[in-house]
């Protein structure tokens, strides 16, 4: 049930896509990340569950470069990316969504996604051509919007979308950067039943094509989607394993699932 024993075959043969190596971070006296080591395989969907305030978002912040760990290393495709900035990590193929929706409210839905495409297609030090008319950026953006049924809303300012639509746009933006690893911070939170179902279906479609680290409170979704699950409590990983292994782990039951049942 520990990290090494349950590493999947793919990871063992080609080396994992993401390796967290003894990551630690404190906020004052609070050990928000406490000696966290875990791996995500190149095509693995690895879920992290844990109670509120366990340090899940802070962990994603450190992987994406929004926050710096106090100690430990982050390896991406074998390279130590700990010193890289957030933008540099994104350019390497590391995309993330935000728990608190983070979009460009004045831009149209299409432009939000096209700009993410632009981030991965050539230089943006181009000063003459009208970017919003570049089909090379708009066409891939429309394909992704279609995947989320957002195409009819393409010309709406993103700030005017409903909450659930914004959550989907958030995901669409992350995907538009053509990532090798997707970090998702509670993509289902606050979405309607139908929207959840659509996002879960999209994630199932993506599964196996890239690495995904998924933070989610919706246990049904996690148990459906995840290859492996890690349980984070007070900044520590107390268990990693398959859905069944985690479900039946007594420590997890008392620390987390038990609380939920009660």
């Amino acid at each position, binding site marked *: 049930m520990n990290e090494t024993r349950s590493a999947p075959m793919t990871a063992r043969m080609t080396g994992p896509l993401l390796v967290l190596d003894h990551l630690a971070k404190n906020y004052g006296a609070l050990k928000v990340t406490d000696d966290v080591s875990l791996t995500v395989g190149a095509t693995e969907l690895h879920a992290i569950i844990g109670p509120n305030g366990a340090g899940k978002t802070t962990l994603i912040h450190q992987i994406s470069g929004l926050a710096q760990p106090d100690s430990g290393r982050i390896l991406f495709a074998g390279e130590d990316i700990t010193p890289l900035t957030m*933008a540099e990590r994104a350019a390497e193929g590391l995309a993330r969504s935000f728990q608190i929706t*983070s979009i460009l409210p004045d*831009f149209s839905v299409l432009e939000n996604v096209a700009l993410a495409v632009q981030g991965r297609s050539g230089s943006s030090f181009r000063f003459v051509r009208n970017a919003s008319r570049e089909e090379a950026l708009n066409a891939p953006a429309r394909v992704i919007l279609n995947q989320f049924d957002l195409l009819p809303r393409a010309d709406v300012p993103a700030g005017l979308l409903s909450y659930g639509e914004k959550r989907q746009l958030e995901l669409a933006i992350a995907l538009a950067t053509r990532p090798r690893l997707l970090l998702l911070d509670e993509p289902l939170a606050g979405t309607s039943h139908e929207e959840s179902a659509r996002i879960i279906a999209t994630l199932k479609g993506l599964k196996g094509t890239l690495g995904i680290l998924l933070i989610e409170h919706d246990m049904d979704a996690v148990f459906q989607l995840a290859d492996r699950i890690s349980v984070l409590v007070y900044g520590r990983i107390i268990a990693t394993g398959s859905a069944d292994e985690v479900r039946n782990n007594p420590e997890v039951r008392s620390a987390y699932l038990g609380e939920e049942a009660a």
Partner: protein
Amino acid sequence: MTDAARPVEQSVPAAAPASLRRIMVPIVVFAGLAIAPWIAQFGTESFILSLLTRVMVLGLAALSLDLLIGYAGLVSFGQAAFIGIGAYAVGILASHGINGIALQTAAALAASAIFAAITGAISLRTRGVYFIMITLAFGQMLFFLATSLAAYGGDDGMTLPSRSLFLGYDLLDSDRALYYVAFVTLGLVYLACRMLVASRFGRVLRGARQNPVRMQAIGFSPYRYQLVLYIIAGMIAALAGVLLANTSEFVSPATMSWQRSGDLIFMVVLGGMGSLHGAILGAIVFLLAEEVLAGFTEHWHIIFGPLLILCVLYIRGGITPLIERTRP
């Protein structure tokens, strides 16, 4: 005196769609400026021409500031420093007998680019009020440097021996010629800026103004784009400085006073941020209002200040959106 401004208010067509109304404003502004010299000949021509030339030159500087404020959210309080660099490039070179406008302009652009690169690299590491303060500080630094240039007039400044020469000819000695040089420069820079803000580069900046963290998460480092924009804006303001020196045939530290930087911010806010022609419109209204009020009383500042504040409070978003929204 309000020839350039009057057609604007009357120009809103009855049921024009929003997009048409949006291009109507710049068209009317530029058309008004194009025919103003013809109208000016029926009045005190040299006074009107020199006033409107000044309006366009400061409109050019306001345009550069709108790039920073309106499109990148960077409220610079030191934009007049770049006007000063342009003006002093003309003044200093002229005092050494170098009168060609090409060389003077090249020197102004090079000096402003270097100054912008150095001060921008430092200022852009700060945000909000700190950015305002540090750009103000760099502006003041240059101001006091200019006052200490005893060889070039120090506090008092210096009168130019003549206006700049164009390929060795004194074309600019004609007020009309200078007017149209300013007009064409403003028009070309306006069109170039239109392209710039719509380009990939401009889109990154507009995105970073709304949400810098999101931009980093999709692979953009806003700092690099903001620095390049800061340099471009500085060079445009220096161009305005070259023209301003020729308009007044006089160069002094006052060209780069902090009050001038403040006036430019007011013009941008008054005209409407983030539209480019709003900045030009702001400059027209600001300078003509100043002129009119100054004709009534020497204490015009006392009226002008509160008037500006009322305008900003009551015409939300400035004059340009007001016109664009108007339905007669």
